[in-house]
């Protein structure tokens, strides 16, 4: 069947490398078509002539680089450049502020020695104690600022963090006011009391530590207490999860939800949605509205008439759905049974060799990768068929399957453990990077994204293929009252009312 493949090559530009990962490189399975093609269209049977009749570039197949993909890639590039600029700007501002904060107390201490050293009164042990405390407090402040603010950012958010901006402004105000007082009271008048100057510097460091404490409370602790329960629904297949969040702004809540999304939601499989789409198309296909009176346009009454007629029509599409689903279920189970047997049989050919045996029989010893390649052909066909039936074949490439097999063999896992990742769809993170399908998310919200979560907030997290609808509900205020029960008051009496006839 080389003709369809060649014409397919013309249409799909990117499929070359993807196809080399997915194509069957073994000779055993006879005439089995390549993994991953045409199942997106949902046809179980390959039409040999389709290559001759198809002329358009299909934008819906996932293995072709269509116009949408190009747009998406350029959009990614543009946005990432913009985001980097802003990130670097924020970084430089923070570094400047940090340096200012760190060097100010040192400047306060050093400047008198530089400008009027002869007038300064010496101060004894009290000053030394204060020097040590300044040194240690500055060290702690340095470490704390690094821990809180200079971590590598996990994500880029659309708007600036309101609290961080406010804290930066506060710190700046504090430092500026300290400098002001220093300039007026100490530099101008050339104060000789050095102990007073040192105490002034120590008070600045104390104030900075308190602001840092405030920063910890605002940025970290405030969101730990749970206030809201958010319900996240994927728009395409209805997968829903519920998470508990504290008091966060909408953008930070969106970030937390997306991180949970990658870990919890099963991977988005567009191939599973094609069945309902075809059904929907069939519903409206049978009816046509004809204008007998010669009016133009589809009036409101006409569309209503069409809906009513469609409802009254005795169609048996529910019947079709029922039998189709039953048939599909049966087919999946049969293929699964064949797969399980094939994998179990394949695993019996391999034995984990012990250390002592290794020295005795040096011939024909394989490392995990070779062992995997050796037993893979016997289960490849059954696995292919199963993946194709459950429409998962685009999630797993040949390479990844063999890698997983080598991994399972190395860790002495049973066939059931090996199959687990193919029988149930795992979270999105488990699959290779190109199946994440988007790391660029758009937050769509009616309220401002820096405002806090409230009861009944609704926002959307849109990526190219689907969107996540998020609604939040507030955990109610609970009024708890106390009631004392004396342990001696636990008395019991039988509630029998027997009536005996005598």
């Amino acid at each position, binding site marked *: 069947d080389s003709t369809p493949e060649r014409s397919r090559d013309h249409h799909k530009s990117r499929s070359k490398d993807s196809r080399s990962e997915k194509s069957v490189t073994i000779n055993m399975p006879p005439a089995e078509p390549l993994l991953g093609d045409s199942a997106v269209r949902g046809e179980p049977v390959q039409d040999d002539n389709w290559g001759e009749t198809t002329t358009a570039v299909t934008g819906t197949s996932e293995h072709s680089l269509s116009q949408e993909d190009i747009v998406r890639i350029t959009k990614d590039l543009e946005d990432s450049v913009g985001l980097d600029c802003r990130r670097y700007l924020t970084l430089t501002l923070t570094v400047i502020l940090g340096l200012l904060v760190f060097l100010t107390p040192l400047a306060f201490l050093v400047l008198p020695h530089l400008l009027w050293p002869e007038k300064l009164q010496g101060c004894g042990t009290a000053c030394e104690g204060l020097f040590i405390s300044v040194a240690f407090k500055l060290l702690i402040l340095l470490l704390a600022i690094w821990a809180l603010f200079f971590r590598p950012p996990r994500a880029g958010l659309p708007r600036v963090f309101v609290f961080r901006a406010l804290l930066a402004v506060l710190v700046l105000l504090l430092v500026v006011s300290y400098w002001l007082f220093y300039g007026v009271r100490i530099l101008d008048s050339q104060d000789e009391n050095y102990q007073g100057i040192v105490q002034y510097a120590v008070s600045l460091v104390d104030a900075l530590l308190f602001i840092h404490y405030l920063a910890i409370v605002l940025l970290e602790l405030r969101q730990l207490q749970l206030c809201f329960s958010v319900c996240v629904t994927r728009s395409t297949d209805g997968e829903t999860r519920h998470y508990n969040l504290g008091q966060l702004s909408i953008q930070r809540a969106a970030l937390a939800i997306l991180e949970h999304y990658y870990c919890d939601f099963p991977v988005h499989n567009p191939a599973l949605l094609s069945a309902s789409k075809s059904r929907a198309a069939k519903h409206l296909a049978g009816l046509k509205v004809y204008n007998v009176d010669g009016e133009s346009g589809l009036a409101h009454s006409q569309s209503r008439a069409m809906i009513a007629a469609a409802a009254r029509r005795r169609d048996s599409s529910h019947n079709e759905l029922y039998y189709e689903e039953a048939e599909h279920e049966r087919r999946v189970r049969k293929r699964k049974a064949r797969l399980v047997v094939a994998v179990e049989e394949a695993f019996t050919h391999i034995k984990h060799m012990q250390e002592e045996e290794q020295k005795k029989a040096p011939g024909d010893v394989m490392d995990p990768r070779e062992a995997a390649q050796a037993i893979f052909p016997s289960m490849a066909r059954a696995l292919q068929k199963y993946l194709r039936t459950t429409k998962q074949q685009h999630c797993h490439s040949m390479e990844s399957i063999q890698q997983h097999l080598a991994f399972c063999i190395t860790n002495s896992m049973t066939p059931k453990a090996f199959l687990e990742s193919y029988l149930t769809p795992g979270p999105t993170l488990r699959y290779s990077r190109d199946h994440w399908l988007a790391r660029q998310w758009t937050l769509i919200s009616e309220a401002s994204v820096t405002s806090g979560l409230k009861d009944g907030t609704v926002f959307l997290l849109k990526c190219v293929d689907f969107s996540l609808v998020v609604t939040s509900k507030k955990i109610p205020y609970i009024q708890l009252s106390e009631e004392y029960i004396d342990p001696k008051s636990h008395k019991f*009496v*039988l509630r*029998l*009312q*027997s*009536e*005996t*006839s*005598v």
Partner: protein
Amino acid sequence: MSFVPGQPVTAVVQRIEIQKLQQGDNLILGFSIGGGIDQDPGQNPFSEDKTDKGIYVTRITPGGPADVAGLMMGDKIMQVNGWDMTMVTHDRARKRLTKKNEGVVRLLVTRKSLEEVVKQSMNKYPRQ
């Protein structure tokens, strides 16, 4: 009919003598009892005082020995053949009434109408 704990119980009682009837293997009296110190007194429909744990007659078989002897529904049984019935468990009451070797039971029963009758008669003829 309410009692004060620690004080002897006083009531106006009627003496009723019932002859047991042989029915198959058993000697029956023809009524049903309810109550007892191990029962829930609040569910007794016949008692005035809902803490009264005495034995009450809950049903009378029409035409049976008890009906013939004049026992009425709602009567509280105070004694059976001299044995006290005001502070017994339900099962003990049943056993007292269904002793196989006794052919006759002599009950002392009280009911509200008895008290009233006595009060009325006392009012009619006040003490002089």
